[in-house]
């Protein structure tokens, strides 16, 4: 039987800075895991020769959340999606596939302790308080499972409609939706995995020692540590970068 292909997907769209971040991320992955296969999903206008570092190249549109489209178009059987503004800093990156176990999708968890570093964690749905639990900064998924890929496509499609005010499911608080929830792709993900019947059977897990796979630099402010006291594998620079300001 043919071994399933495994690879990383990194997406850079809309803003040239993300292309720079993505190149840095891909190079850092290869620093620690030279055999890694990486697919760069980006806009053709950004290319400057450095894209050669990627094993696979896919062009996307200029939507600021083209990451969802990129995730839905992974060329691999098993995929690890990573936000472009991250950097790999440990050779354990090569072990990421072990966390797949028998899950369909694996995420970093948005816990109460970590909640202060997220814009929104709790929201009202049908009068009850609900919480986002899955953080989309990284996502390991079985991209050979058609149902997983259908979810990825729905995530992309619904999110675009949600952002354009063409889709809003019943049950959300109208004001909160407009103020906080509409702009978040996590809202769409929450809806799909919790309310969409066809995705009820998907097995969704959390990385073992998940903090190592998406270590926001702000976690360091509180001294958050890995449960096995191991160093981060992927560090996330999300909160500290001036993404709209040219790097030089």
């Amino acid at each position, binding site marked *: 039987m043919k071994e399933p292909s495994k690879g990383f997907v990194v997406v850079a769209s809309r803003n040239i800075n993300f292309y*720079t971040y993505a190149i*840095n991320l891909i*190079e*850092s992955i290869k*620093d620690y895991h030279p055999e890694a296969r990486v697919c760069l999903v980006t806009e053709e206008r950004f290319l400057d020769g450095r894209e050669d570092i990627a094993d696979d190249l896919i062009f996307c549109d200029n939507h600021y959340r083209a990451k969802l489209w990129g995730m839905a178009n992974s060329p691999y059987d098993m995929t690890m999606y990573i936000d472009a503004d991250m*950097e790999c800093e440990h050779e354990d990156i090569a072990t990421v596939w072990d966390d797949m176990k028998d899950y369909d999708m694996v995420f970093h968890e948005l816990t109460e302790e970590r909640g202060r570093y997220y814009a929104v964690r709790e929201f009202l749905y049908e009068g009850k308080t609900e919480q986002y639990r899955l953080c989309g900064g990284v996502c390991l998924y079985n991209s050979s499972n058609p149902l997983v890929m259908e979810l990825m496509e729905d995530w992309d499609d619904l999110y675009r409609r949600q952002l354009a005010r063409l889709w809003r499911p019943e049950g959300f608080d109208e004001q909160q939706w407009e103020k906080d929830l509409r702009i978040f792709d996590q809202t769409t993900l929450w809806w799909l995995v919790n309310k969409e019947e066809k995705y009820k059977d998907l097995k969704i897990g959390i990385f073992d020692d998940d903090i190592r796979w998406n270590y926001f630099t702000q976690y*360091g402010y509180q001294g958050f540590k890995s449960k096995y006291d191991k160093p981060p594998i992927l560090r996330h620079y999300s909160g*500290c970068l001036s993404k709209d300001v040219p790097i030089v």
Partner: protein
Amino acid sequence: MSRTWLDNAFWETPKKQILNAISEEVDGNQTKRQVHKLDRLNEDGSENELFLEVVEYLGEDKIDAASKKRLEKKQAEAELEKQKKVEQERSKKLEKLFEYKLETFEIPEIKESKNRLLKSKLRRSKSIPEVNLYAILLVQEALDEGTK
């Protein structure tokens, strides 16, 4: 209405000249608690009756034990806070270093370099001077190649 003292009273100074204590008085259905900061001596040099009342009520050993426990707790909290500050500083330094590296990678000679080893060393650098050293090597290499 009788006055009692909570057993968490502690000495404010090592020489036991100031005592911090909480009194409790029950008046019908109402319980009143009040925090006192008591000097051992009054302004005229005489002994403070209230101070003596607390020591009499709780006993000096109990106050010593509560003071020790409180001091240890405060020291542990201070240590934790210190560690938190160190971690915070380290994280902020790391963020600045990351931005600095991204800027360095945008230098044309470095951007176009295919020297993966040096670029990797630059990326793994732990300080700005280390970044600069690898940056110099990469630029030097590009200049050398240009003169060949």
